[in-house]
């Protein structure tokens, strides 16, 4: 139990390494993958339970004090992210096991390593370690996206890779400057030093953290850095695209983590400066992404835009910087991850049932297994448009209710109008794909039905939404507490700095 915080990284890492030893046989690979998945789910659940006690779990890797080594820190938010990732990964894995994992070399290894990267990024309390895990998850995502692909996917992949390497380079620039200015990489320690920074240094620290902000926003697809996403996500294989929905959230999470802890309410002159940039950017992104969803030529592109829209909504929520809005944002984050993932899976099933027309919206084509797919699309569409009673609505209204008085007009208008745009977009694609479907021409057999595993995978994701709707109250209580923890970072920082190693001497 004492080692719980490190397990979400270790379990998939070991599983990924084992995958390399079993060769190309799919059976053992799947066995390892599901064993690891089960272990990860259990770990994540336990972690969330532990975190919900309200204390910050600090795990000192190598038994070094936090400022010397690397400390993993688990608060409610990071535990929530880990749990969300694990819950998301299970259906994605299931979907992939319906056949894609045979076609994409190294799929299972890359999948596990991607999970390791994601969890590492969520759990680490060290800025450079965050960079490393960003890279782990990114490089695994390159592999997941491109393995077994060709043609347009390669082009999208090239964009994705080049863009992210550029962003990573900026990340390093920011890190170098921040280390040069504060002399530490541990976020808790850095927060202390930022707060006590020499007045001459403040502008420089701000410049460095501005570059850092660009990096995170690039990963989270915020204006003007979101343009890579629709292309990438709509070209990724379904199971992978579904898993990717949590990747933009990593960027959002990083912003939340760094800019509450390091540049949060106690950062002296720098307190909360990032939010002033993020609110307008979030609003603009939300509007543009909703227009993008409206204009999309394919269902998958549409979902990709909706992913951006959800990230933008999160930025709006977080940039309002009140406990209630952050809480609503966290809730929204969880549900939007699931719903967009479900939509990617559904889009893939639809695509496979429409023959050459694929998921293009401008072509009428027969749709096999219309009833089941139509139902799935309907539920997911309702959820993503933020219509009641699914959690999308709950998240949205919790967010609207949390908007501080001064910002009501702007934020409400944006959120409500873009919800309408999303609704129109989903109604358009649903009616084009399902309703406008012609009958199959005589003699042409309907395509093979979606595999059971695929349907279950999509069903599970939608099931999460249903469950989330029913247990909204406890979840929101959890996110409320998480937001309170985030916005009052001093105890967390003290806990991280003050945790004593097991055997070694603490830092003076």
């Amino acid at each position, binding site marked *: 139990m004492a080692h719980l915080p490190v397990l979400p990284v270790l379990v998939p*890492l*070991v599983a*990924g*390494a084992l995958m*390399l030893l079993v*060769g190309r046989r799919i059976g053992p690979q799947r066995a390892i993958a599901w064993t690891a998945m089960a272990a990860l789910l259990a770990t994540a659940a336990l972690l969330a339970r532990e975190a919900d006690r309200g204390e910050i779990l600090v795990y000192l*890797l*190598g038994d070094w004090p936090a400022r010397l*080594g690397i400390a993993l820190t688990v608060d409610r938010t990071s535990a929530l992210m880990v749990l969300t990732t694990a819950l998301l990964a299970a259906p994605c894995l299931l979907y992939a096991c319906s056949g894609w994992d045979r076609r*994409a*070399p*190294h799929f299972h*290894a*890359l999948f596990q*390593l991607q999970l390791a*990267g994601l969890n*590492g990024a969520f759990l680490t309390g060290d800025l*450079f*370690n965050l960079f*490393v895990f960003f*890279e*782990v998850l990114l*490089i695994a995502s*390159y*592999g997941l996206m*491109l393995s077994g692909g060709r043609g347009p996917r390669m082009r999208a992949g090239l*964009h994705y890779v*080049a*863009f992210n390497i*550029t962003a990573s380079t900026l990340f390093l*620039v920011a890190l170098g*400057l921040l280390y*040069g*200015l*504060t*002399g*530490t990489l541990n976020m808790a320690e850095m927060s202390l030093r930022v707060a006590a920074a020499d007045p001459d240094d403040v502008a*420089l620290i*701000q*410049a460095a953290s501005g570059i850092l902000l660009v990096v995170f*926003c690039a990963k989270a697809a915020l204006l003007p*850095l979101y343009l*890579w996403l629709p*292309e990438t996500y709509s070209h990724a294989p379904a199971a992978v695209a579904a898993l990717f929905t949590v990747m933009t959230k990593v960027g959002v999470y990083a912003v939340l983590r760094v800019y509450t802890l390091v540049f949060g309410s106690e950062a002296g002159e720098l307190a909360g400066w990032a939010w002033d940039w993020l609110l307008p950017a979030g609003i603009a992104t939300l509007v543009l992404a909703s*227009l993008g969803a*409206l204009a999309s030529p394919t269902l998958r592109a549409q979902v990709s*835009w909706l992913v951006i829209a959800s990230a933008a909504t999160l930025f709006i929520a977080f940039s309002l910087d009140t406990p209630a809005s952050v809480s609503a944002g966290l809730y929204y984050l969880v549900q939007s991850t699931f719903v967009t993932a479900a939509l990617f899976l559904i889009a893939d099933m639809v695509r496979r049932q429409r023959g050459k027309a694929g998921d293009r919206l401008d072509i009428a084509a027969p749709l096999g297994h219309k009833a089941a797919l139509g139902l799935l699309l309907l539920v997911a569409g309702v959820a993503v448009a933020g*219509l*009641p009673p699914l959690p999308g609505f709950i998240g949205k209204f919790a967010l609207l*209710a949390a908007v501080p008085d001064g910002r009501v007009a702007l934020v*409400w208008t944006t959120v409500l*109008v873009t*919800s309408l745009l999303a609704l*129109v977009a989903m*109604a358009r694609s649903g009616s084009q794909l399902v*309703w406008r479907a012609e009958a199959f021409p005589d003699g042409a057999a309907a395509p093979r039905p979606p595999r059971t595993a695929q349907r279950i995978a999509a069903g599970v994701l939608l099931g999460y939404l249903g469950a989330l709707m029913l247990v909204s*109250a406890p979840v*929101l*209580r959890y996110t409320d507490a998480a937001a309170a923890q985030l916005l009052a970072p001093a105890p967390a920082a003290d806990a991280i700095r003050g945790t004593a190693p*097991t055997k070694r001497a603490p830092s003076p």
Partner: protein
Amino acid sequence: MLELLLALPFVLALLVAILRNVPRAATAWLAASAPLLGLAILAWYTPAVMSGEIPQVTHAWIPQAGLLFDLRLDGLAWMFAGLVLGIGVLIVMYARYYLSSSDCAPRFFAYLLLFMGAMLGMVLAGNLLLLVVFWELTSVSSFLLIGYWTHRKDAREGARMALTITGAGGLALLGGVLLLGKIAGSFQLDVVLASGDAIRAHPLYAPMLGLVLLGIFTKSAQFPLHFWLPHAMAAPTPVSAYLHSATMVKAGVFLLARLHPALAGSDLFFYTVSGIGAATLLVGAWNAIFQHDLKGLLAYSTISHLGLITLLFGLSTPMAVVAGVFHILNHAVFKASLFMAAGIIDHEAGTRDMRRLGGLRRLMPFTSALAIIASLAMAGVPLLNGFLSKEMFFAEALEIRGHDAMRLGVSIAAFLAGIFGVAYSLRFVHDTFFGAPPDLGREIHEPPRWMKIPVEILVVACLAVGVVPALTIAPVLETSARGVLGPALPEYSLAVWHGFNLPLLMSIGSMVLGVTLYFGLRRLFDIHAVIRRSLGRRVFRGNVQALLRLAWRFTYAIANGNLQRYLLLTVLAALVLAAAPLADGALLAGAGAGQPMPVLGWVVWAVLAAAAIATVALHRQRLLALVVIGAVGLAVSLVFVFLSAPDLALTQLLVEMVTIALMLLALNYLPQESPKGRSRLRRVRDLAIAGAAGIGVTGLVYATITRPSQTIAGELLARSLPEAYGSNVVNVILVDFRGFDTLGEIAVFGIAGLVVHALLRRSRLTPTEVIPGGPALLPMPANLSQLLFPLALAVSVYLFLRGHNQPGGGFIAGLVLAIPLLLQYVIQGSQYVEQRLGFDYVRCIGIGLLAAVGTGVAAMLFDLPFLSSGHADPVLPLFGPLPLASALGFDIGVYLVVFGGAMLILSMMGTVKPRRKAPPAATGDAAPRGTPA
């Protein structure tokens, strides 16, 4: 029990949807059982409700956000629930026969029940947020119902239009309700209704009212947002009958009634609501006259009647409210029967176009009689229910106090609407049932018995209410009106005859003038030739198209799939955010003095800068750029050497070599030259941006490194040897202090190998240029490299073992292992090497990762955190002390992963198979010279 009442439709909808293969009759009965049982439950509550009690149940849902699952059955809810369920039963019965055999009945009934449930939930909701939840649910389920005939374009369009408009209204309502909750401090209906005065006095009252009314007006199809309703007529008739008589459109007026105590009472409310209501009343009625479709006429008439009800609620006097509630009831009854009648005609005659119909009186006398009675009710003819509420309306219009202009206007509007109402009712009756029978090429006869029963029931209700209102409707009306008004319920009497008064005069006048108008219009011109295109629809369509076009243009003007733009924006964003805080010249404040610069340093600087600039200058000739960039790498390692970083210098040198190998391998499959960029302007722009970035970075770095350092590294130095047993602090940091970073780093490295493997394993690529001739034979270099190989391996082992104390370590050693092997590949050819020295590099990575993780996990067995280092000094006989640090195990992992990863990447790239057939020459590439070997 209330929960049960609400759950019934949903449960049965699910049941109907699941039991797809049962006979249609069974499905219909199953579906009908929901409203029937619901009615029974409602009946059970009736005595309580009538006696003024308000049964209520509350469950927590999201209490912290004010969203409670609260159901509340007051008079208004009771009346509406009865309407929803009662008409629901009839609709189910009717639909059973209406649907053709090709229609999927379970889907229809499931949707219908879903909608019924949503309506019920809305009327029963005791919490405003819950109400919004169900409100939106009605939008969604009505979308499904209207679009039921999915193969029809008008159905799809109508459904989307309805969803768009009502969905927009729903979102506005959500905003309004949230404001209302903020103002009232609670979303509980009881609280909100009780704090009307506070609400009206609140500064946010106006925006809140605007948002709520927007929701209401869209749902109840008020002018100018009414146009979705006629297009929703593409739905099957039972749907229209249900949605547009008793339920969907009534949701809007229901909410108006529901929130009446909280909202009404201000001038703003009065003018807005009654103004919009009056406009809708007239626009709807006037348009109804000129419709040719039976259902279109009914739709516009519905709009008009909804305007009437809205107007009544806008007037806000208690009596007007009573009249409004009364008209809700009456309109539901006669309009449902009329829709059903229209459906029967459509069903039997195959058309609803009045220009083609006529004389049905003789072909289907019974149905005709029913329809005529119902339309007379619509026209407000005495002894029918429509007359009573219309009479009350006239009376109220004349009673308006304090707003003289309004009184005149509303009275005139009411009178005109009465005239129009008579005219369109007359058109309905006259064009359909009188005149010459049409020749439609089919036998027209009475519909099945059961199809008529619902109509009969409703028409009987019209008559009963119209003739003896006090015995039939009075208690219902009173109960429901009390639900709105509470104790303020006024004294009123429901009677056919109130004496000879002004309202009666208006009734008579409107009837006479209505008849005159209809026949006058007929005489003046051919009504049938008038085609009124719906302006609203055109505007809507135009707007949606414009929005789509705008979205398209906007989106693809920005996200145009051009990586250069994405990268440019990224760079610019970073520039702006980094420059913004420094704009006021804060950059150099606090900068300290630097160290002196040795002359040799400038030499290195010159190599670095010159080679970097040359790389840019030569970049279009790629091979040259590669040669030159090698010098940049060398210069960078020299910088590391001079500035006390031996490990870095080694790593940089080795990585440089591997990178060049990588690039050269790739260059074989890429064009040898870059074409010149098209635009000079762009080059200049890029140069400017690059220059700005360079200057910016220079400034930032200079400002940063001339400040005193506050690093924690002193502690690392002090604790490295005693606690981590290594004197090369950089290596100690890598494998101990920050071993987790290194674990991630080797994971990245290993994954890179896997990705390259996955991408190249099965792919066949065409080299851009193939030099004719067989593989180069290099016997002498081969021979020398043979000699070099074991020596290099020995050096690799040496570097690995001493890494903890001196420059070296797993990473460097791994590359020193890999590069000689790579050299073997280059000189001897891949096939030769792999046949003789077949490593499974993938497995090598796996083992390395496991070794690294395993070393870390070992610490956990001693109850220490992951990656804690251990240390032992066993003394071996003969050999003396053997220092063993657990970090060595970790470093073995690094060593294996780096070796495996690097070799996997390079060998995969080196062994790409050429494509069997050369692809057509690509545009822009140099045409391949020679032929693939």
